[in-house]
């Protein structure tokens, strides 16, 4: 049985990994997009969206990752 706590742990670890990719200027656009897609997938799950958890930090991390990814495409 999947729990909200499990998803929050996943999101925390996933965003930490994404933040690290950005801070180290990772150039692998495909991989960065996969990570972002995965985080957004779990952020969209009903158990997560309907919870009382503060999801703001996760959204901030995703936004920063997208901005970095967009810059790589220039």
């Amino acid at each position, binding site marked *: *049985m*999947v729990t909200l706590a*499990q998803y929050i*742990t*996943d999101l925390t*670890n*996933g*965003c930490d*990994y*994404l933040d690290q990719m950005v801070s180290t200027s990772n150039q692998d656009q495909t991989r960065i997009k*996969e*990570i972002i*897609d*995965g*985080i957004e*997938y*779990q952020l969209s799950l009903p158990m997560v969206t309907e919870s009382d958890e503060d999801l703001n930090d996760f959204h901030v991390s995703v936004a920063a990752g997208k901005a970095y990814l967009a810059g790589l495409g220039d």
Partner: protein
Amino acid sequence: MTRSVLNSASFADNSVTNAKIASNAVGTAELIDNNVTAAKLTPTSVTVANAGEILGSTFWSWDTSVASATNNGWQTMAGPVQLGSNVQNTMNNMLSVTFFGYISSGSYYWTWRIYDTTDNNVVLPIGASKKTGWYGNADGTGGGFSFRGSVHNASQQPAQCFDITGRDNHNVILQMHGSNGGGSSVSTSSQTLYADQIFFYAGFMSGMHNETGY
């Protein structure tokens, strides 16, 4: 010694007529009262246990399974499922499996396999040596399928057909493992593995299946 033989000649000379059947042979009353009873049907005909082994039917299904890859080794996502007592007759020696799977975002990808916990070996797919997405040994000591689709989003894995010859009454399980980028070898990761809408089919099934297994 004289033997009575019922053959086409017997029918040709009017020995069996509609009138005889309708009036005497098998009547509704006989069926209800004596001939066919629930007790007679249950042990030999269709029971819950063997109904799922009808060729091409859903043999077994399971929803929502999760395992942490921080525990080293292959993670059991579903099962054990016990195969029937005569897999040659009921399943044509084949078991097909499809499910949705992913690993949470992080550095690792994932891989999967069907494992026989009775024999303690990997159940090989049909045509393992030439199977797209399959890697590993042909002797059942290793190997698995590389994930397909989006690695960190729930993605349906195409139905794969496994050779279960000789595995009568064996228990099998679905396993997942963190892997390298290509999904073709195992790696220990701290991410979480997810499997959902897992379907086991009796016999050969191929292609993509929707969330109800069809």
